[in-house]
């Protein structure tokens, strides 16, 4: 696993996520949010889970990011900037980060290098989904249908 690629992708992802969290203009934040997800997908490729990386690009950037920009468009008011930034949130986020770092460094079993594994093919993922994970698959289908119907009902305008 290349360390140069790791550093580049890590810098890109964290910078884009920070930009998404702190930029005042909403559309810029939404677009850097999409870039952050490109970074996360690149991490998945680096880790050898290519299928998940492709699904990530497809779902998050192709669907969720488009949804977010559409919603920004439909709920616009002037001025478009977000007013007010709550600095208490920064304190809490830093505290949580400190706590997580402490727990990561306290666990010695985590300082391992990557073992060599056989690459996970799409065929194996498909087989596992259809045999071991068939119930979660059907439930996810149900959840997605419910979400689709629910979202439509929430935004449909009654023609009165």
């Amino acid at each position: 696993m290349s360390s140069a690629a790791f550093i580049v992708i890590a810098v890109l992802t964290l910078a884009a996520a920070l930009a998404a969290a702190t930029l005042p203009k909403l559309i810029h934040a939404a677009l850097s949010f999409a870039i952050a997800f490109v970074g996360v997908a690149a991490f998945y490729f680096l880790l050898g889970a290519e299928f998940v990386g492709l699904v990530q690009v497809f779902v998050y950037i192709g669907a969720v990011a488009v949804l977010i920009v559409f919603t920004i468009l439909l709920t616009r008011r002037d001025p478009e900037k977000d007013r007010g930034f709550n600095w208490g949130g920064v304190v809490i986020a830093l505290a949580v980060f400190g706590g997580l770092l402490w727990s990561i460094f306290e666990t010695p079993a985590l300082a391992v290098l990557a073992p060599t594994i056989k690459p996970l093919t799409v065929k194996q993922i498909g087989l596992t989904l259809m045999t071991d994970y068939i119930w979660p698959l059907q439930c996810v289908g149900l959840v997605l249908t419910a979400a689709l119907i629910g979202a439509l009902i929430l935004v449909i305008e009654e023609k009165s």
Partner: protein
Amino acid sequence: MTPTLQLFLIISAALFCVGLLAALSRRHAIFILIGIEIMLAAAGLNFIAFWRFAPPPHQPTGVMVAIFAIAIAAAEAAVGLALVIAVYRNYRTTNVDELDQLKG
């Protein structure tokens, strides 16, 4: 440095905290949703990192959980954004501080 598991976990913890920052410190409802999505992505990254660094025998559990997490995150984003639009239609605001009609 060759990436160890600790390094990946630190990155995903940092990503999670950036998402937490976005969700806690912004007042626009859509920013909060963006923060939640970033947190979900960080958790997925955590799962895939653990899957990759696991000792043999190698189970595909991490990859499965990440796939389901992405699907659920998409569904939740759709419903959340529909809620934001519905609230905007009725109250003409997306500032979550102004949505306090149930305040006792």
